[in-house]
């Protein structure tokens, strides 16, 4: 038995799973992001200049990209787990000799791939209409991977914890969505009152979006290194929780 084959097979299956429904998993988020771009840029582009020399439409794109990256990374691992649990086919994974670490890494890697594919798809469509610089591409890549990993790990936790689809919807609507919308996707936190600026600094999504935006423009609301540290630490914490849940068999093995 080759240990890596099990991991690779699950990763391949999880990737193929979202590829099979590409309109739902890739095309739909691209469409949503473009609609946000169209509407917000039309309404606000002549009124707002967040950073000097950066048009509002340009400013908006990295935020929309990262928002889609994190939402889809979360959706990938969480929906796979909750569907398997509700339909009962999770048993096919639990019967295998796959270790908790292999399970975690395969679900995480597939989430990262989906997050990056969605982000890249939005970028490729957006640059047709908007000129986007690439000031610090390594930061851009690092934040994209960390963002996908963070939400991929969170999706694993949610997928294991939730027993019903409405519990999963609660995660999306009451945690992921507010944290993404309140993280500076549509605005710079410097435009907020001081109290809400401080509150924003407690939101890891803010560092993801701000750092990702730094990758494009070389300018941001916070230090990108601080952003890497906060998001890297958040990934570590959520990964440890997810691995512990898999290791203990929490809500998976009685």
């Amino acid at each position: 038995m080759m240990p890596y084959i099990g991991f690779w097979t699950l990763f391949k299956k999880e990737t193929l799973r979202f590829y099979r429904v590409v309109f739902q998993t890739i095309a739909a988020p691209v469409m949503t992001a473009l609609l946000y771009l169209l509407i917000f840029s039309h309404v606000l582009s002549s009124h707002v200049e967040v950073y000097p020399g950066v048009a509002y439409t340009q400013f908006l794109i990295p935020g929309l990209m990262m928002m889609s990256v994190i939402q889809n990374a979360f959706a990938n691992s969480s929906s796979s787990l909750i569907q398997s649990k509700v339909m009962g086919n999770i048993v096919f994974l639990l019967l295998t000799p796959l270790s908790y670490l292999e399970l975690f890494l395969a679900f995480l890697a597939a989430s990262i791939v989906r997050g990056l594919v969605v982000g890249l798809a939005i970028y490729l469509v957006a640059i047709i209409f908007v000129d986007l610089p690439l000031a610090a591409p390594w930061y851009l890549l690092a934040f994209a991977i960390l963002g996908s990993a963070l939400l991929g790990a969170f999706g694993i936790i949610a997928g294991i914890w939730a027993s019903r689809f409405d519990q999963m919807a609660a995660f999306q609507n009451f945690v992921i969505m507010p944290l993404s919308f309140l993280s500076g996707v549509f605005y710079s936190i410097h435009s907020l009152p001081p109290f809400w600026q401080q509150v924003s600094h407690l939101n890891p999504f803010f560092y993801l979006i701000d750092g990702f935006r730094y990758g494009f423009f070389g300018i941001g609301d916070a230090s990108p290194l601080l952003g890497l540290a906060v998001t890297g630490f958040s990934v570590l914490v959520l990964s440890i929780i997810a691995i512990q849940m898999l290791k203990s068999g929490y809500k998976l093995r009685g």
Partner: protein
Amino acid sequence: MSTAIHLSQVHKSFGQLQALKNINLTIETGEFFALLGPNGAGKSTLINLLAGLLKPTSGSLKVMGYDVQTQYREARQSLGVVPQELVFDPFFNVREMLRFQAGYFGKRKDNDAWVDEIIECLGLTEKAHTNMRQLSGGMKRRALIAQALAHKPPVIVLDEPTAGVDVELRQSMWQFIQRLNGDGHTIILTTHYLEEAETLCNRVAMMKQGEIIALDTTANLLKRIPGKELQLVLSQAIPENLQPLVRSTNGFKYKLSLNEITQIEPVLATLKAANITIIDFQLKEADLEDVFLQLMSHKA
């Protein structure tokens, strides 16, 4: 002969409910073993413990010598389980699903020939590229069996594999399972169709309320009910002097317990003397169902 399954002092509780009580069981390699019992007896709990889907409250379980808790990778590698429920992944077709399942067990592409063989032997060839959602119930059941066999495990557990399955599939499925057993695979079967267990299995464990109340070879269990059953449909009520032999009555239909076959002659002679016509007549050996019913009704 080496040991395929070894359970020692296994207990499993769900809160206050003791689902399994001090289970000790050894199944040798190559056995075709039946695990029988009414609903709630603990059969599925026992299988789930073996498969690692549940954790025992106490005791140890080994598959092919590997502890299911501490050596779970080796233990699960040795086990193929056909779950009772018709569960499936709706995103993939039969062949993809089987290849994925084999891959989870570390099997490379060279295992594909075995996957194709299972597909053929279970009559799934025409459905190999059909999505699982589009299969009929019987076909889904075949696919489930194939999935458990995809990594060629030495021990195969079939948890009520023929529930809701038509006669044709049952026969072809049992032929294939018997072939696997002939090739050295250990088969553990739970079923409510006791005639299947009687025909196929060398040894039987009967469970009731979380305990094994009988564990013996099928032949020995059948010997527990000596004699034969004579079923009669008469034109009128049975004579008074035959009443001691009557086990059950339904109108003028009677079931008589005979200790020996030589008792038939005096029964027939008595009926003739009483001028009673025999409308129907059947002589039946005791079967596993009789043993099962007797054990379930007598032992607390």
